[in-house]
């Protein structure tokens, strides 16, 4: 609803009344910078816990702290998860983008560029909620996991295109945990949140893996990180005990010495994938283009114009009629939004197609046999579960305790 405010009455003239000075901008800015400070400290300690101390217990405590502070105290909004919409809206429309929002968006990505996805464990209240309430791991099959992750990519692109074309921040409506952190009053959201938490008890981090748009960006940044989480503090002995320890599917097993298919078969499959890739990309781009028109309905101006053309009366149409805004201006705005959505979603469709084919090609690629167990930096959320199951890690910790690098005398 568009509201045009107008001062119609003079302020009341009370005797001896001093109107208090309000500096709303400062209050908002202070809250944002405090949130940034808390996040920075949490990320710092998460990095220490993941790389230096290698302690799942500390990581768990930091996760609980992020849930308490960033989740309940700061009510989880704004949060970096949906903030890419703000950034895109600020870039492509006249939405005012503040420095605080930009920093909050960029900080976890900057950390991920060097240290991996530390934010998911020690800075995200949504991830913390899922991490802490996960009790019984049901491993998601690899193929389902990989396909499911494309949904997050699709949500990232759709949300981004919508925000960039001036359609608002609709991805936040899809956050199932927001109603809990904000003590919201939507019972439908509450039901969805309950279902999501129940799912999370058995499937580790379902939102993070299959719905979080920010996780896609973190994954891309983490892949480029020079520092990666190592399962073991020493040399891997390929005992395979860590293979089933990661509920996120982030541990990459080494290639078996004996290949399960011939190199020729592998090359043929890769060739087919390469040949099919352009067609898949084009078809997905066309699908994105076709979906642009129905998805345009999320735009306020599009809905308003549809109501006006469909002779439907609503608060929005009455407000529009009273505003004096020319209908031609509304039609121009809608035409521009439609154009942006079409272009954006066409490109998004192509990206999704490309991502699916790259995922297939990555799995098809055979690495050199006999490599040790490693962590997929893009998928690892630094939960530390693998530390506890690795015997070399235990030995290394014992040795470190027995023979510390610098001897300290305890009183």
């Amino acid at each position: 609803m568009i509201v045009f405010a107008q001062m119609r009455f003079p302020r009341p003239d009370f005797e001896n009344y001093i109107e208090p000075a309000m500096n709303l901008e400062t209050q908002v800015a202070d809250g944002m910078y405090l949130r940034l400070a808390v996040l920075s400290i949490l990320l710092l300690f998460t990095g220490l816990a993941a790389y230096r101390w290698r302690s799942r217990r500390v990581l768990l405590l930091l996760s609980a702290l992020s849930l308490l502070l960033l989740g309940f105290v700061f009510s989880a909004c704004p949060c970096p998860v949906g903030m890419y919409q703000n950034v895109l809206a600020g870039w492509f429309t006249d939405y005012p983008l503040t420095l605080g929002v930009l920093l909050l968006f960029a900080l976890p990505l900057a950390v991920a560029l060097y240290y991996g996805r530390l934010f998911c464990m020690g800075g995200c209240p949504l991830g913390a909620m899922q991490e802490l309430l996960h009790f019984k791991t049901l491993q998601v099959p690899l193929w389902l996991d990989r396909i499911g992750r494309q949904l997050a990519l699709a949500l990232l692109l759709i949300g981004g295109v919508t925000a960039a074309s001036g359609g608002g921040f609709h991805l936040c409506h899809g956050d199932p945990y927001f109603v809990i952190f904000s003590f919201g009053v939507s019972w439908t959201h509450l039901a969805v949140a309950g279902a999501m938490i129940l799912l999370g008890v058995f499937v580790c981090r379902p939102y993070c893996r299959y719905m979080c748009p920010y996780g896609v960006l973190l994954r891309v940044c983490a892949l480029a990180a020079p520092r990666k989480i190592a399962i073991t503090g020493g040399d891997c002995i390929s005992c395979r005990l860590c293979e089933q320890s990661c509920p996120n599917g982030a541990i990459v097993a080494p290639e078996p010495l004996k290949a399960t298919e011939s190199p020729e078969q592998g090359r043929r499959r890769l060739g087919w994938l390469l040949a099919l890739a352009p067609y898949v990309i084009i078809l997905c781009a066309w699908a994105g283009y076709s979906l642009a028109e129905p998805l345009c309905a999320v735009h306020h101006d599009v809905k308003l114009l549809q109501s006006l053309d469909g002779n439907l009366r609503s608060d929005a149409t009455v407000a529009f009629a009273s505003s004096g805004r020319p209908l031609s201006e509304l039609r121009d705005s809608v035409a521009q939004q439609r154009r942006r959505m079409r272009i954006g979603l066409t490109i998004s469709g192509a990206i999704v197609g490309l991502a699916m084919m790259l995922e297939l090609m990555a799995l098809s690629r055979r690495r050199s046999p006999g490599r040790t167990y490693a962590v997929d930096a893009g998928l690892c959320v630094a939960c530390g579960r693998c530390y506890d199951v690795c015997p070399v890690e235990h030995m290394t910790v014992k040795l470190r305790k027995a023979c510390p690098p610098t001897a300290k005398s305890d009183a």
Partner: protein
Amino acid sequence: MRKDRPLIYLLARNAAGIAAAFLLLLTALVVSEQRRNHVLLLEADAVLTTMREQVKSLPDDEAALKVVRDLDYLYRDGYFSNERRLHLGIGLGSSALLILAVCAVAMTLSAPVELKRPADDSKERLLQLRRLQLATAASVALLLCLGLLAWRATHQNAATAVGDAMGEVGGGSDSGTVAGLVASPTIAVPAAPPLALPAALAAGAGHWPGFRGSLVPNANRLPPHFRLQQVWASKVPLAGFNSPVVWGDRIFVSGADRRERAIFCFSLADGALLWRASTGAPAVVPEVTADTGYAAPTMAVDGQRAYAVFATGQVLCTDHEGAVLWERSLPEPKILYGYASSLLLAGPDLIVQYDMEEEQTLYCLDVTTGKDRWATPWQAASSWSSPVLLADEQRQVIFVASNRKAGGFDLASGRLLWENPGMGGEVACSAVAADSTFYFANSGALAAAFAADSGEILWRNDNVPMPDVASPVVAAGVMYLFTSGGSVITLDAKNGEELYEENFDNGFYSSPVLVDGRIVAVNMDGLLLVVEPSRDSFKAVGRYEIGKKVLATPAFAQQRLIIRSMDNELVCLEAANDP
């Protein structure tokens, strides 16, 4: 392994179980209660809304008002109680979640690590890869299906819209030819820049561009001796009391009802309906009386565009081919009977007199975009009159009459130059401009001449019968008043003295117009008079029975008179030379 679990783990596990059970139960209870209350509140809201509407017609019934107030209080109390319970439920749930989280942390920290032996399946990876290939193919297929469905839905909607529009061609001309296409797409057709005022006025002189013709003496000629014969008659698809306007070989009228508002274009040659262009839906459709309708204001037209305004406050602009160039919605119109002020086209400016019951504004819109060039509010009253422009080398003044006062506005800036109270009654007549003076007469108000620069009343005459709908005309120094009682009163334009009176059986609603120095007037019975202006006596040099009732003002172009009858038919009469 379970025997080795420490006590703290067991305690935390049990506490977590209790918290989880509590959470599940609480969520189920809250969700079911909220669903039920949501339905109840919606029903209560609907009942309350209906009662509020009903009680508006009983403003003095205190008992009814009390019932509504009490119900309103109960509804609000119920609404906020529900909100508080939901907040409490979510608060309790969040607390249980926190306890659950704490227990989970305790369990994780205290539990021994469980080692899982991986499955020994060397072909697992290949199997997963094959399944991923199938899943990818299925995902792509699903995306394509969604895309196809969306594409079909989009194209079906577009086809339906065009089909609906095409299907509404109705009311063709008596000649049987309906060339009509409908619902031109909303495309901004680039047009040449509009003419400046002097050039526009001069260009308009050869046509019939607005209510009562051109702002400068009309250049259309009437033979000295002529006879009128009907050439064609065409039905206008939608009703309206506005008068036709003409540019070149095209006649433009507007029509509207509660569902649709449209401009219609007819051929001057044979009356064929060439096209119609409709507005979008308005936010509000006001109530109007049957004798005003939704299309009372007369259109305006120039060499490139046609303009119409409707009782919904919508202003529509099309080109001569029916393409909508822009559309504008003015604020919600609230006026008794319905909005009726005709448009005034002054070169690149479109003047809209928007005098409503609560707010009065004179708008000047840019003809190319419809945006405000200026909009001047003023403290007047309702009006059904139309603005009149006096433009010469010294001044460009717009005369606006309302129920309470008359005002003069500067065309260039919109500034209110002067106001003159003394109006009264319900003003529906419009002034006429001649010799730097505005001549005005309206029953219940006054018959007077206003100086264009100052608004000073040069003379007034309150002792003659005055029209209440038909606007006066000034020709050869004589002011003619055609009244709805059937009288034609003539006043000396210099001093307002009555000269003579002529009476007819039926009254005049249609405003007389000046054509080639002669006055053309039509009464409600359809008697068309051509009057030679004279100070001495009433000289009707031509009479013609149209055979239909007429309320709208005739238009004249290319030796043809176009009259819109009360039964919504356009009648074209040719003034053939009769030596």
